[in-house]
């Protein structure tokens, strides 16, 4: 991966794609007493990289690859269905599709001829990693860049939420992220290695407790994050 400003643009937490409203499961984990300090945040993020982060990165790379094939519409539809199957919690399916819609809106504004019409249509919107793959293709990024953006995004959302929810020292939180940089890169590399696999063979690690927490979180009367 050649370092590029385009990678930084898409990985930037200020990129307007709706990420700010979501904690990536951190709010529920904090309420359950699982994350209390930088050390437990680090463990939470390591788990996130190994599950949702890897799945998101693998599907983003697969969608990026699909952008260049002839039957991309049907490939993207299969990827969408496979990602649904890997997202057990209905709440998290809805969140992924809502974030997909948000990224799609941004992608269409930035790359009006980006080929986004190949994504599955319908009101819930396509899953976020699929949109990321097509946005990255429109931005002419390579697979490693796509995977890195997806894996990195799976860490930075919860990390930023931890600063807001727990009042953690932002320097220590970023030290946690820096310590996980190699893990993040390794996750991206694993995702890239699966890129040629058929959709049903893509990685499927999951965290059942996170799924349960996500469902319960939607029932809270007062919450600071949408997920």
């Amino acid at each position: 991966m050649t370092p590029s400003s385009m990678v930084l643009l898409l990985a930037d937490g200020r990129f307007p794609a709706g990420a700010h409203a979501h904690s990536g499961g951190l709010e529920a984990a904090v309420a359950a007493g699982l994350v209390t300090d930088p050390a437990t945040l680090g463990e939470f993020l390591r788990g996130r990289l190994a599950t949702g982060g890897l799945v998101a990165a693998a599907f983003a790379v697969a969608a990026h690859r699909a952008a260049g094939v002839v039957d991309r519409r049907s490939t993207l539809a299969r990827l969408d269905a496979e990602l649904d199957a890997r997202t057990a919690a209905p709440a998290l399916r809805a969140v992924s599709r809502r974030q997909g819609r948000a990224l799609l809106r941004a992608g269409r504004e930035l790359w009006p001829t980006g080929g986004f019409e190949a994504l599955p249509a319908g009101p819930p919107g396509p899953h976020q990693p699929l949109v990321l793959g097509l946005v990255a293709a429109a931005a002419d990024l390579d697979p490693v860049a796509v995977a890195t953006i997806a894996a990195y995004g799976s860490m930075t959302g919860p990390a930023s939420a931890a600063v807001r929810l727990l009042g953690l020292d932002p320097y220590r939180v970023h030290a946690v992220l820096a310590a996980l940089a190699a893990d993040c890169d390794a996750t991206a590399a694993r995702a890239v290695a699966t890129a040629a696999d058929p959709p049903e063979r893509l990685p499927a690690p999951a965290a059942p407790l996170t799924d349960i927490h996500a469902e319960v979180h939607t029932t809270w009367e007062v919450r600071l994050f949408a997920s």
Partner: protein
Amino acid sequence: MRPESVSPTPHEPVPHDETVPHTHPEPGVDPHAPLPSTVRPLRVGIGGPVGSGKTALVAALCRAFADELRLGVVTNDIYTTEDADFLRRAGVLDPARIRAVETGCCPHTAIRDDIGANLDAIDELVDGVGPLDLVLVESGGDNLTATFSRGLVDRQIFVVDVAGGDKVPRKGGPGVTAADLLVINKTDLAPMVRADLSVMDRDARARRGDLPTVFLSIVVDPLASAVADWVRHELAHHRGRLAVG
């Protein structure tokens, strides 16, 4: 000075129309085409500090426009959907015409830096209930730095209240200085909190130049007439602009 004696100036030309670069939020719509049967609704943002009366103003405008305009409301709450629930319970608008956006700790981000969820909510309103004349986008209670993106709204109203202190207009901030309409609310409380409305009027004029300011008490005027009149004027202007191109 009595509140009624401060006259709003809703019919003066609004100078920023010609000076602020305006990005059309729907690039697929040719602004020079003949007026389509379903004109994009005027989007009006309503912002202001916590407790200044934004939701009460939205409810008042819903009552004022009930039989006049096809209206939709988008609320932005820090916590869950409190403001939307209030409006639904108040019975001022069909619940299908109200959408809530959850802003995740950051109400100003959802109306300024990352407006997609609000644009989605407006699209969903139109998909659900058909064409609209006016969409009110209420921000979550924030501070004096809150301001709406021009990509989200066409016009914005900033609401402060006399109980927040009569120094608020002097303190400025983008809401006070640049909102298309400043509403100084709860004037009925002024004697109780010893707020001097003439000071607020003078400071608002100093901060805002020709931009209009209205004083309001929804207790006295449940239809928020001065604000409703301003919205009517802006709506006529909006339709004229779309028609002329």
